[in-house]
């Protein structure tokens, strides 16, 4: 069966959903990570089509979840990740000893 999910695009051709979908993922990253954990995610028109441990697994999941009446779609893929702070503020050793 031919896939209805198209991830590769000719040079200079960006489907209209692409920019908005990447931006939507970034702005909803915290909620998406809470819901799906750290994983690969496939999003089309601000709707999660599939997730998986790998890009390939997420694509397979999206293919399964695609409504039968939907034609070819041009979703985006992103890696959901928790953002680990590199700086944590805590009382210094000298402050503790002063007490």
């Amino acid at each position: 069966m031919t896939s209805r999910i198209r991830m590769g695009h000719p040079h200079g051709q960006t489907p209209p959903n692409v920019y908005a979908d990447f931006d939507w993922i970034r702005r909803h990253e915290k909620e998406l990570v809470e819901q799906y954990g750290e994983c690969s995610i496939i999003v089309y028109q601000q709707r999660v089509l599939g997730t998986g441990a790998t890009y390939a697994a997420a694509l397979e999941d999206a293919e399964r979840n695609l409504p039968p009446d939907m034609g070819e779609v041009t979703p985006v893929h992103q890696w959901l990740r928790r953002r680990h702070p590199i700086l944590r503020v805590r009382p210094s050793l000298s402050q503790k000893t002063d007490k």
Partner: protein
Amino acid sequence: VTHLRLLIYTDPGEVQIFCNLIRKDGGQEKLTATVDTGAEISLFPLELLDILEYRLGTRGQITVDQAGLGNQSFAAIEVYIFISLEDQLGNITKPFEILAWFAETNSPLIGFAGVLDLAVLHLDMPNREGWLEIRAP
């Protein structure tokens, strides 16, 4: 020179750029990457090598010793790939070849080698604006 509008985010702060990486099927894989002025070389998730067109760098498999706060080491594959950069305003570079590392990461980074080396970076966080001016080869 191509002027590209960057994606500016806060909480946590991050500057991203739209990238197209050339796939084995001839199409372009679209992704967003963090513009990282601490990265010597651009870094991408290893699993992308399954779908991307690439040629191995002379060093092939390497171990990268990070000199940052983490001071950790990680394994990577050094390859040449073709990339083009674009923005949501329709500005786009021609595809050009860069040396990049592919490793077990879920955080694509655009670094200096072949990209930021050729660019002027403008970042105006109070106004949430950023631009990259690049003369792609």
